[in-house]
């Protein structure tokens, strides 16, 4: 099946096949085994959710976020969201590096916020994960806050889904002490089934991460501590009014 299967792979898979083919009565036609799920009905349920339904999902998200120590901020407009992020930056304390700084996913939605202009007078530098920026790794390692866009949010588990894309590194949500994710309300879905249906639609799916709150551990005497190896705090800024960069009708990856 695999074109360039290593020789050891062939012997390995032959052994696996031998183990099951005579003793297993559950072998199905291949197509049946991999029959695609009925995503169409799930996706149909996603289109044209009205404002009332979206607000109900947002309430559910906020409720489920609380026990995870994920702080949700609801902002109607881009300037409101920018103020929110700037306020979080001003109030934060640096952890690994003496100076505060922010690193932003290079995404039109975050560019449109212009948080850097707001923070200029506070002398808090803002950096971008642009493809031509050779300093992305260094800026990420020294940043106190990483700001990312979420492709989708999941209300049921207070989760964000991030697909890895050029200009949107995985480390932005991981290495800085504080993670702020921005999610348009139109991209909030109800549950994992809806999120998986959207993930399956993606062509050339690469790596992705589901993130539900700040990193944590309970390894010492089952005592919950936030801030293990990832961010010690996480904020989710939900934009309730669709920004221009986002298709309002259907929650496509942004």
């Amino acid at each position, binding site marked *: 099946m695999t074109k360039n299967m290593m020789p050891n792979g062939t012997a390995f898979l032959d052994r696996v096949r031998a183990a099951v083919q005579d003793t297993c009565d559950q072998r199905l036609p291949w197509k049946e085994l991999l029959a695609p799920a009925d995503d169409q009905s799930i996706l149909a349920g996603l289109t044209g959710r009205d404002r009332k339904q979206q607000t109900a999902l947002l309430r559910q998200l906020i409720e489920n976020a609380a026990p995870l120590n994920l702080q949700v901020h609801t902002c109607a407009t881009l300037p409101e969201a920018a103020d929110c992020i700037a306020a979080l930056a001003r109030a934060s304390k640096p952890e690994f590096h003496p100076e505060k700084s922010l690193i932003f996913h290079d995404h039109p939605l975050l560019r449109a916020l212009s948080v850097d202009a707001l923070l200029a007078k506070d002398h808090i530098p803002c950096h971008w994960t642009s493809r031509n920026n050779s300093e992305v790794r260094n800026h990420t390692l020294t940043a106190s806050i990483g700001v990312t866009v979420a492709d989708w949010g999941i209300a049921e588990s207070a989760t964000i889904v991030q697909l*890895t894309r050029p*200009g949107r590194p995985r*480390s932005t949500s991981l290495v800085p002490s504080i993670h702020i994710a921005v999610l348009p309300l139109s991209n909030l879905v109800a549950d*994992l089934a809806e999120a998986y249906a959207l993930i399956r639609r993606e062509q050339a799916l690469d790596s992705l991460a589901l993130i539900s709150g700040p990193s944590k*551990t309970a390894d010492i005497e089952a005592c919950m501590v936030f801030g293990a190896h990832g961010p010690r705090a996480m904020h989710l800024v939900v934009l309730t009014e669709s920004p221009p960069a986002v298709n309002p009708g259907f929650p496509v990856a942004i």
Partner: protein
Amino acid sequence: MKSSPPPGYLETAREGMDNACLQKSLRSLQARYGKGALDIWHNLPDPGLRQRVKSRRMQTLAHLDGLLALLAEGVEARGGQVFFAATAGEATGYIRDLAQARGVRRVVKGKSMLSAEIGIDAVLEAEGIEVVETDLGEFIVQIAGSSASHIIAPCIHMDRQQIGQLFADRLGIPYSEDPPTLTRAARKALREKLLTADMGLTGCNLACAETGHISLVSNEGNIRMATTMPPLHVALMGMERIAATLDDHRDLLQLLTQGAALQKLSTYVSFVGGPRREGDPDGPEEFHLVIVDNGRSRILADPEFREVLACIRCGACLNICPVYGRIGGHAYHSPYSGPIGAVITPLLHGINRHADLCKGETLCGACRDVCPVDNNLPRMLAALRHKLAYGDPVWQVRPHNRLEALGFRLWQRIIGNSRLYETVLRVVRTLQRPFAGSQGVIGSLPGLKGGWTEGRDLPPVAPQTFREQWLSTIGKKRTHSEKTRKDDQEHDA
């Protein structure tokens, strides 16, 4: 002929029972997580979920060859490399050669029981490579020179005072027994390692054949670090840890995080399908997936035990097992402890060698009740005992104790003959007298029979059998009342 003893099951079990800190932790772990998982299963919105997932798991195993090939195809299409390792030696050899070829000096690990099963740490360390566990619990047991005693909570056998002292000695921080302070110290020390390592080495919780990804769950973020920051990522995957489709993956993921820690989802779930792509700002330059058999195909070929490969290693059975709950994980002498360890360890590493594990479990059935994929572990434990009693040529099992087998055959003869049985009881009643202690129980027996009383008291043979008691008390009254009733009836007539 007695089988070769496993490495100190009884001794380690006793140590576990004497460890007050472990006992306290196990009690609270079981009170919270074992019962919590049962509650979740009882209140599932879709009560048929576990059964359906189990039947999909079995179908997946029946097609494992094709699904593994499909997974490999997906990973290779993205520029990742897939190595199929038939044995632990092949897996460690591949990783060692790779590390040498890339000049790796430091490896950061995400929690992986398979890595312990194949013994990769020692192989890399023998080449002078630094190997650092980054899961906090695994890091603690690593620097303590200990080993994990729970699948999900590796340092459950240590308390905050011990960890505080360990960190003071090894990390050079002022002594503290405050978990947040200790966690911050480890966060700082391990961040340095995570950001400078040459290789990230992780396990794989669950691959997805349909999309060609592996997926990893963690709460700490160490696994995302280890798979993102070093230039090289190697993932070790037990060959059965695969879902056919994304739908299967979703169901299994939810059962995994709920069974393991009562979470709707863990903090991080990452899907990794290959190395960084052109234009990706970070992620590893190389991705190697090592798919390991190491005895699994033998289990797969045996319909009696195939079911155990449906396991998703959530650890729920440890959180409910009365035996694990007393003896702790070290007695199992395997990366896999608890009821799942008592089944999988003998199957992977020798049924005779680990004979004590299946004999030590109680067959109470709690592990099956709590298992998210309804694995019938008690049935498999009993099947292992059967093989130990009678031997098994396919699994190369020698009868583990011929003397005991002879004893039971004799017993079978005795209880088949009531006169012989009663005679033997009378003899035993006389013989046992010198051994009865002050409580009326037998605390120790001489010679070979001593094994019976080593960890428990034996109730003595009662002065009367049930039949004798019946005849002498209730039987007499019954005869009397029956007689009276008969008299009354006669009178009425």
